[in-house]
């Protein structure tokens, strides 16, 4: 009992200690010491040892072609380089290639940087580029295939020159190759041979500014500056610490546990702006949140009373557009951190049509249109939405259900985890669905080709059009014309016509563009990128 009693006392003492220790610690917690005794070079002045970044998710893999999602890519873009790079505003910049030229409509040559080494020490050559594109295109689990469908083949001309052949004239080839991170042929082939392909998941070897140190899943992933890189990163050591819950992540920043967080909850921005030592970073995102509507099938899974499918009637789609009060959603659900969308891309994307404006909220007209279409009492429909993918996704869906109820459309909201929702959407199980899309290459063509072109598997077109079921030969023709047109001015004009056509026909109802919200300690000098990636070499301590 004595032992028990003293143990109890010890526990109580400990609890008190813990509780009291909580009050003050505005300074970022010291990061774990580097392993292996090798001390990181201390940055100048009082800057902390390591920069700690917190995203919503951990990397799913460190194999660059395995997954295609933002937190993973954010981390990978520090370890790997591509031959062509994007600057923070998505303008083309040199990467591992210093220059390039179009030999003819179907052929491009890239001059590669010399004297570049992988983190393993292997030299970077044209063979690595050929190998990487081959693996990105032909490894059966590659998620990168869709980005580079137009590429027919890649060949090494000499040690520092590669030649790309495309199936058709490709006006955005540079934007496509910028998506492919370059792996080391020698070490990758050897690793696959010796340990199997899953070895690559935890052993990345790139040419990027940061070198992989260690990764404890869902806990932290550490990188350190790579001395052999062409620039000079000022931050020596960086730790990615995933915190999936938005408010918890914010709390970690407020407590000084991390230095920069992504996806700040829209309702909590005031709290950051009220703190002198913190700064809110915002950047209008390319991501459109929209409603997809099944325009094809007469019997549709989310419409219990179909056939007929009311959504096939253009007037019904217009009525839904007019019934949604986007202003109320932006003001309340998004707390002002979103931009109402009048078309499928924001002004910063190539293909935006400035002539199109968003019609005003008009429930009366919506009811008239429904009556004209033969649905004076509305109809019943299920609205599918993810509940953990976009900012307040399920809340937007509920708000839409509420607004549509007022014009007589009875909406049943089905909000589910993203993996389940996306699988259903892909299998064509949805009739009306809330989803997001962004063209990370800064060009509208992807939206049209993947989402709205009549499905054509052989050419890789319309592959994300399975629940939308939209088919419009006139639009198909415009999409294909744009894909062939190399002249920028002409191409823009074709894309404008396509956008006008889509917004007239309304197979999708644009809701808003998200605003990317980050918060960081004010000593951190950084500007968010348009593609949401956290490139540590673009950050420095003040």
């Amino acid at each position: 009992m004595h032992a028990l009693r003293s143990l109890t006392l010890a526990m109580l003492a400990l609890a008190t200690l813990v509780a009291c220790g909580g009050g003050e610690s505005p300074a970022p917690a010291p990061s774990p010491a580097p392993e292996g005794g090798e001390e990181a070079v201390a940055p100048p002045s009082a800057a902390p040892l390591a920069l700690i970044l917190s995203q919503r998710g951990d990397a799913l893999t460190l194999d660059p072609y395995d997954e295609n999602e933002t937190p993973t890519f954010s981390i990978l873009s520090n370890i790997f380089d591509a031959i062509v790079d994007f600057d923070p505003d998505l303008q083309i910049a040199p990467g591992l290639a210093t220059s390039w030229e179009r030999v003819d409509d179907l052929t491009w040559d890239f001059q590669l940087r010399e004297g570049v080494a992988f983190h393993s020490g292997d030299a970077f050559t044209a063979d690595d580029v050929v190998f990487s594109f081959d693996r990105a295109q032909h490894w059966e689990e590659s998620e990168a295939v869709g980005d580079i469908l137009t590429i027919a083949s890649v060949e090494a001309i000499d040690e520092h020159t590669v030649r790309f052949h495309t199936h058709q004239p490709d006006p955005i080839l540079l934007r496509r190759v910028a998506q492919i991170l370059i792996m080391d042929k020698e070490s990758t082939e050897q690793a696959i041979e010796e340990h199997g392909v899953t070895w690559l998941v935890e052993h990345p070897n790139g040419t990027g500014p940061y070198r992989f140190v260690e990764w404890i899943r869902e806990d932290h992933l550490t990188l350190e500056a790579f001395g052999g890189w062409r620039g000079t990163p000022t931050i020596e050591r960086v730790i990615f610490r995933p915190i999936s819950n938005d408010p918890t992540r914010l709390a970690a920043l407020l407590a000084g546990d991390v230095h920069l967080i992504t996806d700040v909850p829209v309702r909590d921005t005031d709290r950051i702006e009220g703190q002198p030592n913190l700064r809110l970073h915002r950047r209008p995102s390319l991501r459109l949140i929209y409603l997809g509507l099944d325009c094809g099938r007469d019997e549709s899974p989310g419409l219990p009373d179909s056939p007929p499918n009311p959504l096939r009637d253009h007037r019904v789609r217009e009525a839904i557009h007019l019934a949604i009060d986007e202003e109320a959603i932006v003001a309340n659900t998004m707390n002002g951190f979103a931009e109402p969308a009048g078309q499928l891309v924001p002004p910063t994307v190539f293909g935006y049509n400035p002539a199109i404006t968003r019609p005003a909220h008009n429930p009366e007209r919506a009811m008239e249109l429904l009556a004209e279409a033969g649905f004076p009492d509305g109809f019943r429909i299920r609205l599918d939405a993810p509940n953990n993918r976009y900012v307040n996704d399920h809340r937007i869906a509920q708000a839409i259900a509420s607004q549509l109820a007022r014009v007589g459309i009875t909406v049943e909201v089905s909000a589910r985890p993203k993996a389940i929702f996306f699988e259903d959407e892909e299998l064509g199980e949805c009739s009306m669905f809330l989803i997001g899309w962004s063209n990370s290459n800064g060009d509208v063509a992807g939206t049209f080709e993947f989402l709205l072109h009549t499905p054509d598997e052989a050419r890789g077109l319309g592959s994300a059009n399975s629940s939308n079921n939209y088919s419009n030969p006139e639009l198909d023709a415009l999409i294909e014309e744009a894909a062939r047109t190399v002249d920028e001015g002409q191409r823009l004009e074709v894309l404008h016509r396509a956008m006008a056509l889509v917004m007239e026909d309304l197979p999708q109802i644009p809701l808003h563009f998200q605003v990317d919200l980050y918060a960081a300690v004010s000593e951190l000098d950084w500007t968010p990128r348009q593609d949401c990636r956290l490139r540590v070499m673009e950050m420095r301590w003040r």
Partner: protein
Amino acid sequence: MSRVLCLRLAQTVIVLFAVSLIVFVVLRFAGDPVLQMLPRNHTQAQYDATRARLGLDLPLHIQYGRFIVNAVHGDLGTSYVHSVPAVDLILGKLPATLELATAAMLFAICLAFPLGMLAAMRPHGILARVILTGSLLGISMPTFFIGLMFIFLFAVLPNILGVEWLPSMPAGGRGECVAILGLRFSFLTLDGIRHLAMPAMTLGLYYLAVLLRLIRGEMIQELNEDYVRVARAKGLSEASVTVKHALRNALIPVVTVMGMQFGGLIAFSLVTETIFQWPGMGKLLIDSIGLNDQPVVMAYLLLVAVIFVTINLVVDLLYTVIDPRVRVQA
């Protein structure tokens, strides 16, 4: 006795087979894993190739056979999302969950004994009533609500609503870790303990209440036994009677229940882990369900089944030993 043991073991193996069969069949029909693995814009050829590579084109009984053979070798499939063996993924989270469960158990034990004994010593006193009512309240609060209230009191009120007299605690996550024998634990750093305190108390509160009531019940019974009266009559001090005699005898059932509850603690930690973003097995399960990562869900369920079936087996056998009247039927 050994015949009974063999019979029970055989039954346990059958139960495990049944569980694995149910889990296997149900997961096979609950969505298409190939679609999960492939990119959005895959071709039919890619689909067929992946399907063949995973062996999903084989007849079901062969697939199940392979699954069992692999499972016996400790291979429960590869995570679709993380591309690493599911067992590795789960076992990698085990230290965090064990740490949380152990801390919760310690918290419960350290408070349950003194409180339970206090409540037993004067069963009708005010203190006993307060303790009992409190424990009933503890049983009446779902774990997730306890967690939310802790967060509200010690993270939201002090940090966000500016209530200064409340101590401020981190709302979630695991604190700084130290590696011991290659496993990472957080209870050795102050930061780690601050992060551990609220989830451990959340998880432990229910067990505190259960344990406390059990200890009180057992102690009341023991204190009414003749030997205690004799001891008292001999003039031994009350504390000595309570602790040396009654407690020692009450300990056996209490320890048994504690052992049984520890397995449950590990499994139930999934709610606590979800609320506090504690990177353990339970959070992995919830995340994997959200990501539709079937091999991980399957592996988790099988591992938990093994743990629980083993506990049940041991308890049943102990029962037979303690009370020979309960004959185990074949």
